[in-house]
């Protein structure tokens, strides 16, 4: 087997050193009645690199790759152009095959990168401190809810209807096992993101209000108003962002009163990958709360020779030290995805991110105007960044499936996101990034026209 360096003479010499007759003898502690004396039955045997590649390629061909379609899907996972440099860097073995940097003397590469990443995320979000990443946006969002409960010692969680339904679902699932009481109402097919109704529901028991920005239908809620209302009642504002490129054009949540900002970082550097691995981002505006934060943190220090260096720090919050008193049971971050994000963000910088956001918004406006002219189609949103909701005069789901047969991935039907939602079936969420061409927009418009006529 090509990944196993030992030769039979090696094995024989090593067994002799150990004083065992065979490898099987080393498994003497496994009760004989449960020890398998050969390979697990019914499974294939070893295969060459060529054969495995062929098999996997055949499987991959059964998927329609975004690049082979006119592509307008978003809803928490975004297709942006990722510069070739990003993939080259993350495939360097020194990053790819390194462990968590618990030995800082020989992990300064990962640690310095994480320190830079934390700073990039904190600035993008308008926050004081960001952690070294979490699993994904949905789990980061739940961790923020639990952190808010620790800080406020309250249990009421008020979730906006504009939050990604998967994030809501994760929170509702986890809350079944904790003491959090979640209040959530499905969104309605309206241009107004419903800030007033949300604000009206904040009470003295509310630990936190969770708002997505821009929201699941592409609308942009007024964070400052919600923040003021929440703070007046002693509650925290958690803002979730699923599209970080938007923050190149929109004011940062931390500058608009958010206390905890979480999000999905996948859009920058990571790629679609059918939903994972992704990159949870987590940041706070008040640095005094850092000891209540979940996840790994990288901090600056000096070494014994007085040189600047970086270490994982404040680990007394973490499970491997605190065991059942930890701030979270999470042990892994999303290191390599954080690297991809950081490299892409470094290539972009202030100027590039701003220009990328502007290009997304320009194309999205173009698409919205064009699609609004299709008979039977109306653009719902007053405000949006690169994602908006179309209201069709028929159910969107079957139409999306039909268009896919013709190589048009038209977007995400709200009926897929909210299968039990009332009155949302005609909604189609359309996302337009810089990877979309004006021809693609025309293709989508024509396809919709045809399908709706």
């Amino acid at each position, binding site marked *: 087997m090509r990944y196993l360096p030992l030769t039979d003479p090696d094995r024989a010499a090593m067994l002799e050193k150990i004083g065992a007759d065979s490898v099987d003898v080393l498994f003497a502690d*496994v009760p004989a009645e449960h020890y398998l004396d050969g390979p697990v039955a019914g499974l294939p045997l070893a295969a060459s690199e060529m054969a495995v590649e062929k098999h996997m*390629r055949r499987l991959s061909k059964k998927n329609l790759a975004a690049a082979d379609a006119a592509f307008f899907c978003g809803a928490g996972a975004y297709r942006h152009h990722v510069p070739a440099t990003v993939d080259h860097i993350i495939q360097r073995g020194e990053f790819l095959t390194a462990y968590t940097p618990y030995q800082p003397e020989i992990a300064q590469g990962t640690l310095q990168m994480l320190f830079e990443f934390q700073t990039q995320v904190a600035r993008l979000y308008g926050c004081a401190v960001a952690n070294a990443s979490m699993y994904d946006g949905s789990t980061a969002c739940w961790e923020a809810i639990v952190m808010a409960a620790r800080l406020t010692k309250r249990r009421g969680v008020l979730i906006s209807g504009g939050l990604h339904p998967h994030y809501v679902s994760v929170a509702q699932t986890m809350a079944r096992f904790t003491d959090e009481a979640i209040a959530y109402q499905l969104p309605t097919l309206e241009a107004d993101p419903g800030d007033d109704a949300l604000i009206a529901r904040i009470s003295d028991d509310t630990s936190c209000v969770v708002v997505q920005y821009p929201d699941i239908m592409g609308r942009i809620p007024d964070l400052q108003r919600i923040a003021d209302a929440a703070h007046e009642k002693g509650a925290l504002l958690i803002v979730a962002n699923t599209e970080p490129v938007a923050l190149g054009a929109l004011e940062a949540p931390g500058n608009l009163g958010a206390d905890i900002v979480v999000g999905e970082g996948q859009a920058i550097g990571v790629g679609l990958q059918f939903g994972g691995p992704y990159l949870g981002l987590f940041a706070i505006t008040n640095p005094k709360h850092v000891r209540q934060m979940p996840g790994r943190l990288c901090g600056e220090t000096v070494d014994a020779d007085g040189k600047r260096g970086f270490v994982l720090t404040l680990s007394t919050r973490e499970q491997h030290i605190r065991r059942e008193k930890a701030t979270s049971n999470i042990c892994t971050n999303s290191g390599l995805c954080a690297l991809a994000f950081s490299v892409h963000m470094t290539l972009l910088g202030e100027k590039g991110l701003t220009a990328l956001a502007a290009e997304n918004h320009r194309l999205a406006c173009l698409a919205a105007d064009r699609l609004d002219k299709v008979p039977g189609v109306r653009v719902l949103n007053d405000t949006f960044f690169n994602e908006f909701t179309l209201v069709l005069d028929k159910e969107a789901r079957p139409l999306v499936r039909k268009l896919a047969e013709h190589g048009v991935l038209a977007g995400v039907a709200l009926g897929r996101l909210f299968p039990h939602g009332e009155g949302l079936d005609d909604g189609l969420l359309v996302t337009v990034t810089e990877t979309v061409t004006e021809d693609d927009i025309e293709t989508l418009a024509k396809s919709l026209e045809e399908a709706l006529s």
Partner: protein
Amino acid sequence: MNKMNAGGWKPGTPVSSNNEGEYPTVTGNRALKLEERLIFELGTRETCGVDLPEPKADAPNRLGKFARQQLIDLPGLSEPETVRHYTRLSRQNYAIDLGLFPLGSCTMKHNPRLNEKVARMPGFADVHPLQPVDTIKGALGVIDELSHWLIELTGMSAVAMSPKAGAHGELCGILCIRAALEARGDARKVVLVPESAHGTNPATAAFAGYEVEDIPADKDGRVDLEALKARLGPDVAGVMITNPNTCGLFERDMKAISDAVHAAGGLVYCDGANFNAIMGRVRPGDLGVDAMHINLHKTFSTPHGGGGPGSGPVVLSEALAPYAPLPFIVKDGETGEIHLVEEENVGDEFPGSFGRMTAFHGQMGMFTRALTYILSHGADGLRQASGDAVLNANYILRSLDDVLDAPFGEAGHCMHEALFSDNGFADGMSTLDVAKGLIDEGFHPMTMYFPLVVHGAMLVEPTETESKATLDQFVMAMRSLAERAKAGDETLKTAPHHAPRARLDEAQAARKPVLAWQGSVEG
């Protein structure tokens, strides 16, 4: 948060002190050992490494009143500067590609490059998680094939694929247990965890709302079966047990433990972090396990990536399968058609599912890598791999047990990791010193001070992807370090001497945390 960054010499500034050893340089560089500034010190707000159209002032604007007013203050670098920055940083990292990474319980094995190539096929890398099901048949096919392997290798009934990493998988397993108990109206409060367990185990049980109670180990480093039996009762939801355990030993009584827990109405969670030792040799399902997470980033060679992403599918027994989280796939036995089960269609057929743990489908990019690895090995190769992993660990155990104390060495063979203690070191010499000495010898340190049941523990897991020549060199280094520790060699106290950094002041980092760069980027 203090305003200033911590002091100390920074790359990019001249070296003026004379503590640079022999042959000081003014840059702080040492030939191929290159110092690197932060991107915030290198870049400017005007530099960009991507070509993008200039934004137009008169472009349409649907941002309402929310357009950004404040500077983000991010630095940019051109492409060549970016490549150089990260390449220089990369060279300050140790990695499996460079050498042995004997971290016990972490299974740092070779990461095959075919895995990377496959994961980047457009049909896997460039697919959206919410595309219509007809356009993602291949993705569901990958999940189905990998599921089949994991189920067959573990002798279980089902697998929940979505957990994002090991601890997330633990949580999934415990939540399945809680959901199953609640479904039968049985609100049990306590989870038993052996004292040798991973720290994540008690953290997970507590997160899921359980009280955690320790169960002691016996003198052989295994779970004390009688103590466990004595504690079982109607308040015990289950046990979380690691097998092989964190002392590197197989829990011989695993079946008896499971039977006792089941008889008392509880369920058995097994931490599968150490599955690499027994893969293809014994099936946890045959030992009565109800749930076990599998770290694809350990056993099945997906890269650790400097701390993630991981992937932690959870195999489930028949008793727990109905409670698996969404989404999951179901294969039609007759047509072979694979169906995706999500919130909308879970209702009637699968009422028990405890909900959703993450957006989308789990770590697809890791599924493709793990499946590629598994198909490469085949059932025979996987069995050979666990055999070689255990052989390598025993070879290290027997090559060092005359110079290092091996607390359970007399009890027989170990599994995939060899455990030593600091017993016999000179006063003032510690496991940490040996670990830092290993860095100078060109190895990554072993796992230190874990498991907690052994004083000054050193847990060495070589994995099967190391050659005998590498192991022999490691043994040579460890023998030398053991002698130095026993002799009280003071130079070990200040090791490493040859790494990019000397020992770092972790106390200062925690006392006055500097967690972000504080300056303003050049305009």
